[in-house]
């Protein structure tokens, strides 16, 4: 009991947690940043080197992947971004009341399988 800092000092303990916490969050995300800036490319090069020492059979597959990746330049990315922008501006149509009622025959079947059963076929 004597050794516990007690919560009288919660505020200072809070500041310690604040400082520690922020430090840790930053350092961990910096670690991730560094790993993906440096670590992953290194790993991938090592893997590629290792593989080129091994069999050549799988070469074809790899080259296909790389090709499709090369096709995907920043230009494409920009085009996609534009498309996305336009996409997000689309409005939701109001559900058509008629449609809902037309479909009711499928929905109106809490316990019966006769309708349940047909559900999937439509």
């Amino acid at each position, binding site marked *: 009991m004597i050794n516990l800092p007690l919560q009288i000092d919660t505020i200072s303990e809070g500041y310690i947690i604040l400082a520690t916490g922020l430090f840790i969050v930053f350092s961990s995300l910096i670690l991730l940043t560094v790993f993906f800036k440096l670590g992953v490319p290194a*790993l991938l090069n090592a893997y590629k080197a290792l593989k080129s020492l091994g069999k050549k059979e799988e070469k074809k597959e790899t080259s296909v992947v790389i090709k499709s*990746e090369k096709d995907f330049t920043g230009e494409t990315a920009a085009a996609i971004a534009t498309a996305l922008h336009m996409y997000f501006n689309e409005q939701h149509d109001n559900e058509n009341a008629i449609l809902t009622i037309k479909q009711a025959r499928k929905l109106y079947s809490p316990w019966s399988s006769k309708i349940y059963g047909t559900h999937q076929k439509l």
Partner: protein
Amino acid sequence: MKKVLIIFGVLSLLIFIRPVLGLNTTTKDTNSQGIEQLENVENESFVSEAFEGIKQFYNYTGFANVTGGHLVMIIIGIVFIYLGIKFDYEPLLLIPIGAGVIIGNIPFVTGNMTGIYESGSVLNFLYFGVVKGIYPPLIFLGIGAMTDFSSLIANPKLMLLGAAAQIGVFATFMGALYLGFKLPEAGAIGIIGGADGPTAIFLSSKLANGVNILADGTTVKNLIGPIAIAAYSYMALVPVIQPPIMRLLISKKDRKIRMKPPRAVSQKEKMIFPVAALILTTFISPSALPLLGMLFFGNLLKESGRTERLADTARTKMIDIVTILLGVTVGASTQADIFITSDSLLIFGLGALSFVIATMGGLFFAKLMNLFLKGDNKINPLIGAAGVSAVPDSARVVHAEALKSDPHNYLLMHAMAPNVAGVIGSAIAAGILLSFLS
């Protein structure tokens, strides 16, 4: 056949007519021997007894037990549903939560296993997944299976913006301490600043669950309800909260900065990412394992290219089921007598503060980063605001805001990077708070 029916009909009519004819006195006679105190009951007419029954039943109804608190909460529930439907603010959460708020505030007499806090009731069983923090990791599994981390992999330095926004978490934590909350309670409140519903529920179910006992012998308060509601409310209001702060802090010129398109990311990098990120982040913050473990596991299912079937289930039906159960029980946990306290009000105030600070933190840090970046590596400081997470709303708010300054500046792809980093950052922060305070 007809005969059978007629017999049935006559039989059943008999049952109904009996009391009118006084036939059931026979039954009573054979049974009532030796029990004299029932006599006076017999004297009462059937009608008055039935009236007694109705009166007794009336005492069970909501009309007899309703309080102002119930009505206030029911109206809040309706407002949530209205906001979800009318303005399309996070309807997948506001509508279940709103319905849950109504369900949780139907007045009832305790003892019939109706209420969410009554052990043995159906709502209580479903609430188990909230109290034990089981739903949030399952939601994270689905989120992982639907999230594309490409923009983060392409530009890992944007990860720091997700860290900067966590200032909101720790500032709110301090604020809660100043307002007199205990350390674990303050930690749970702070996580509202993470702008991440499942993380908030997970952490509050561990720290402020009404069960844990503090060093001084007191029990922590159960703040899961207010914290969850505050977190989801402000997440829904991100399109209202963030734009004025952006305009206040970022200059017109800065808002027009165009960022170069992110590089293409190979499938191999995408596969390595979840595994590496899982190991690195949970080594740093093991207490966040349930959240981050599931998040990156879900992402691995998505990116492996071999488990599309599982990823698809995780991000559709599985997350839907959990979302329904989570939403309705979190809503129902706002039972008026437990929810309407000054604490809830303080938590709502602190929640607003935390979103503001988190946004400011992200924006300032983005400006700071620009001091060290040159040429076309410079980032548009607006994307700092996306670091709060609230995926993908805050990224879209950034996108929309940038378009107002320059109708051809498409920031969405760039804003996604700090946005998902914000999720990771909040989960790490939750782990830190958990290991310090639990």
